[in-house]
């Protein structure tokens, strides 16, 4: 128990156990699969047409934003060269995965994805959806993987407040709630502030939106605020997610 909790020495054994129970879990998720399949089957043509139109509009907007992104990326590289610093930007290659099951128990919060080690997925890879960070891959089977969600009480994410750049640690509280720790009372923070990954620790890539501050309490005699936040990602609703893999860009170091 201690070895598994504090180190990754037993992760291969855990993966082996997960592979063993994979057929059982697939059988267990059959009712959910049947429900999803029936829901899809009864979608009317009108609904599909409306959805298609919505997606086309979204696609157009994203393309326009991407054009600007390319320009901004070049500008950042140019500024970095001017300052004589190495570029911190790294591009990520993504892999789309379907959510096989979502589990929220008092003990753990996780997704099971339909991509595993045979698809090139690795432990500690970051998982996001269209809105923000979802979590991190913690175990693998050849055909599926487990994602520990950011709301899991055992996960800690190094983050920063986008508006001020103040760094802190985001902790899962379960029930779609997070707590932001180590923000000193001398710093500026307010409800509605966006929290993004800081990239420290080299596990979660920098700059991905994670949560929105929902409550800030100033406790008497305490050096830090008590801050609660809500995840940006639709943890209960996501059907498709993106698995990020790091692909560092060639950078000029002077």
């Amino acid at each position, binding site marked *: 128990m201690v070895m598994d909790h504090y180190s990754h020495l*037993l992760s291969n054994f855990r993966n082996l156990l997960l592979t*063993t*129970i994979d057929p059982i879990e697939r059988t267990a998720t059959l*009712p959910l699969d049947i429900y999803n399949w029936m829901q899809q089957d009864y979608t009317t043509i009108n609904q599909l047409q409306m959805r298609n139109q919505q997606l086309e509009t979204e696609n157009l907007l994203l393309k326009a934003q991407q054009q600007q992104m390319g320009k901004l990326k070049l500008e950042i590289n140019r500024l970095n060269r001017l300052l004589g610093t190495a570029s911190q930007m790294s591009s990520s290659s993504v892999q789309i995965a379907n959510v096989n099951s*979502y589990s929220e128990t008092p003990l753990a919060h996780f997704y099971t994805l339909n991509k595993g080690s045979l698809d090139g997925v690795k432990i500690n890879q970051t998982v996001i959806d269209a809105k923000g960070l979802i979590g991190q891959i913690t175990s693998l089977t050849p055909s599926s993987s487990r994602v520990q969600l950011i709301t899991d009480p055992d996960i800690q994410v190094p983050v920063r407040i986008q508006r001020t750049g103040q760094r802190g640690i985001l902790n899962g509280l379960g029930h779609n709630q997070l707590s932001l720790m180590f923000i000193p009372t001398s710093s500026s923070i307010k409800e509605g502030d966006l929290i993004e990954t800081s990239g420290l620790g080299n596990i979660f890539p920098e700059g991905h939106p994670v949560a929105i501050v929902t409550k800030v309490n100033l406790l008497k005699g305490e050096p830090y605020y008590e801050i609660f936040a809500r995840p940006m990602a639709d943890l209960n609703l996501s059907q498709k997610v993106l698995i990020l893999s790091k692909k560092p860009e060639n950078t000029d170091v002077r």
Partner: protein
Amino acid sequence: MSDKVFSLRFSDIKWLFIFSYFISVVIDSMMILSFNVNFIPYLTLLILLFWSTQILNQTHLFSAFVLGLLFDASMSTPLGSHSLIFVTITFLMLRSRLRFKGYPLWQQSIIVGSYFILFQVMSWFIFHPVLKGNALFYYWSEPLLAILIWPVLTQIMHKLTHRSVFS
């Protein structure tokens, strides 16, 4: 004959034994993965307690350990934690299984309920579960549900066992 009635032999019911564990693990996983229901007691533990009172020439500690490991992998908890709880409860049942078999069904249910209270207490200390709002009530209602499920489960299992042994 009396040997069969008092203590079942593994060879007589091996398929039922394996099948019952398979079905119970599938149902437990289904509750967590498909229906997101967290207040149903582990059917696998109930089945484990049932077999440990019926097959008396085995200790069932190895089964408890392996099933615990499978639950650890399935629930993403530290490896060995569910095993520890399962083995402890099975060991307690082994100490009193002969007396347990002689008790009426309602009394057996209350004892099983007390084992599930122990299960929840150990889980509380090992896993530090996040219990907010109704989750706290659901967490402590599991032993009550185990008390209600045990008589039904034993009746079903007795019928299936009888059919396997005497067919």
